[in-house]
């Protein structure tokens, strides 16, 4: 039974190299840290859950070298159904925004981080 789950993970891993999923990240934890595969997956989940709990409480989360997740309050505004043109009120809400750090921005542009950045 466990074997079949493992096989499906490997297949998913190989079938789409352009999308990284929990399975890939857990696999990296497994090889880097030397915990069991199960525990690696659990720890990854705990990381994401801690982030979610902080954000849910309205806290911002700052990961140096990566970026900042913060919660922004949006006021009420009048929207429009683009298909019918009918005006509908959009209620006040909280949305999550992510601001990438200079380091992350440099990395995705193939630059060495730290050359022209001011803040991590």
């Amino acid at each position: 039974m466990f074997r079949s789950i493992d096989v499906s993970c490997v297949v998913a891993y190989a079938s789409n190299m352009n999308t990284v999923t929990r399975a890939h990240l857990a696999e990296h934890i497994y090889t880097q840290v030397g915990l069991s595969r199960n525990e690696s997956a659990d720890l990854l989940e705990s990381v994401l859950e801690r982030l979610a709990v902080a954000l849910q409480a309205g806290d911002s989360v700052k990961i140096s070298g990566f970026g900042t997740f913060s919660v922004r309050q949006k006021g009420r505004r009048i929207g429009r159904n683009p298909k019918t043109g009918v005006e509908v009120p959009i209620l006040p809400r909280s949305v999550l925004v992510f601001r990438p750090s200079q380091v992350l921005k440099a990395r995705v542009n193939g630059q060495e981080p730290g050359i022209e950045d001011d803040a991590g």
Partner: protein
Amino acid sequence: MTKSELIAELASANPHLLSRDIELIVSTVFDEITAALARGARVELRGFGAFTIKQRDARTGRNPRTGEAVAVGEKVVPFFKAGKELRERVNKRPTGRRA
């Protein structure tokens, strides 16, 4: 919350692990997301969100201090879109009035 606070929280929730290992786990997660984006891949974490990159065309910017025109080359920017579950959790705080 900062990265070190995140590590401290995880360490106290997992007393059987070395805090060095917790640190390595947290760094691995963010380093791998960074590496994936750097090679042009997307990272999709169901329920949490997806990290992708977006292409930005070259444009003529302006130095806000001098008003001088500056050429800004095309570039790629990292982007995060919150997943449905996280989006709803963030929006469901008791403080906000909801109809």
